[in-house]
């Protein structure tokens, strides 16, 4: 790794300038070194940072500048951590020291960023004065047609149908085919079923709803029976009472000559 050298003028100058300078303290210097090395705080490589930190101290000494004691202290601290790490990888104490360093670096950086944001707020805030002094106006009423322009692909229809079918399959029961018969096919005439039901009620009196289906041999016959019950109810010829599970059927009035289904 080629050891980068840092612009000392900047470092020196920074001490004389106002707030928020790069190397106010050792932590700032470490943060700077981290960013120059494109290193995350968590992935700190103590060797690299230490070398560069010492190089910086050395350079300052060569320029005959006074180096603040806190920078020296930090150097010894970094060296301490590195030594412990060299001695044993599993050194918990060194790890704790390292964690503490990382924590203070993060805290430092957070403060720095927050400081920058507060600076930026100061610059942005006056601009907001403009927005407090203007008014916009609502749109003029324009008549919009209700006819929308749609742009769809024919394939959208296929996809929509696939979705419908997909959902229908997931919705079992009842299967969709069960209804086909209701809507379309009527191999068992509903009318004759109705007559059958009425004559059965006449003969046997009140019965249970489910019993009406006893003996039905096909699905279409069940459907026809069911439709006949519905139609008879509608015409107030029979009356259904009770609950979902226990439902009784009784005749209310005579079956008229020409009941149309």
């Amino acid at each position: 790794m080629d050891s980068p050298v840092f612009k000392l003028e900047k470092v020196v100058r920074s001490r004389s300038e106002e707030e928020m300078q790069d190397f106010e303290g050792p932590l700032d210097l470490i943060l700077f070194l981290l960013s120059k090395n494109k290193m995350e705080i968590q992935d700190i490589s103590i060797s690299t940072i230490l070398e560069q930190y010492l190089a910086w101290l050395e350079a300052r000494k060569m320029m005959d500048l006074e180096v603040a004691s806190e920078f020296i202290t930090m150097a010894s601290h970094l060296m301490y951590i590195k030594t412990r790490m060299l001695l044993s990888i599993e050194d918990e104490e060194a790890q704790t020291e390292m964690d503490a360093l990382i924590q203070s670096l993060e805290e430092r950086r957070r403060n720095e960023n927050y400081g920058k944001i507060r600076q930026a707020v100061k610059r942005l805030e006056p601009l907001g004065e403009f927005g407090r002094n203007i008014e916009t106006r609502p749109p003029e009423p324009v008549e919009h047609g209700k006819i929308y322009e749609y742009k769809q692909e024919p394939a959208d229809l296929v996809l929509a149908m696939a979705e419908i079918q997909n959902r229908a399959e997931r919705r079992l029961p009842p299967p969709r085919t069960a209804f086909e018969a209701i809507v379309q096919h009527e191999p068992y005439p509903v009318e004759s079923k109705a007559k059958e039901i009425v004559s059965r009620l006449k003969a046997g009196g009140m019965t249970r709803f489910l019993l009406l289906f006893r003996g039905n041999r096909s699905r279409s016959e069940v459907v026809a029976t069911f439709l006949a019950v519905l139609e008879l109810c509608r015409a107030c010829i029979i009356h259904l009472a009770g609950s979902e599970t226990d439902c009784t059927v009784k005749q209310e009035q005579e079956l008229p000559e020409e009941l149309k289904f």
Partner: protein
Amino acid sequence: MENMDMKEIESAIEGILFASGEPVQEERICTALELDKPTVQQMLQKLMDYYAYERRGIRLLHMEETWQLCSSPDYADIIRKAFEIRKPAKLSQPALEVLTIFAYYQPTTRAYVDQIRGVDSSYTVGLLLERKLIEECGRLQVPGRPRLYRTTKNFLRAFHLTSLNDLPEMPDLITEGQMRIGDNGEIIDPDAEMAEPAEEETTEEETQSEASDDMDTE
């Protein structure tokens, strides 16, 4: 506001008129500018003349004691054009589903759509009617006489179709022998249609003729 010159007063009035979407009472302008009515009226008139004379895109309307800015009728067509440029919309998934069912099973009823989708589609059907993507075309001759719907020309346009024959072929489409209505409004008997080679299997055809026999005879 004695420290304002005429031009500034005019601009201030313009600002007031602009900020209000509605007609502005002369009184308001008088109060805001601390000017008497004749002066304000004079300024308003001047502003009105300026817009008209310079043929600006804005006009000032005077209605009794109120004044209102509006866009110039000279550019009404262009303005309308600017607003009518809308990105063609996309149909929502429910709307697309309902429309698909109508497209393939037309003419058919809302009840049939509900049955296939398993949910109530009345809102969506209303929407498609309003957007002129489907239209009513008679009633089904069954109890309750439910309305029949079919797709419109607008539908064909939205999907870049020349005719319903261009509808993409649908795999496993269950045609259930429901009566259909032809383009010219005549009722197509499903059986007659079945007699054509069609995609239906023979068994299906038999069941259907059986069904219609039942209907006819009993």
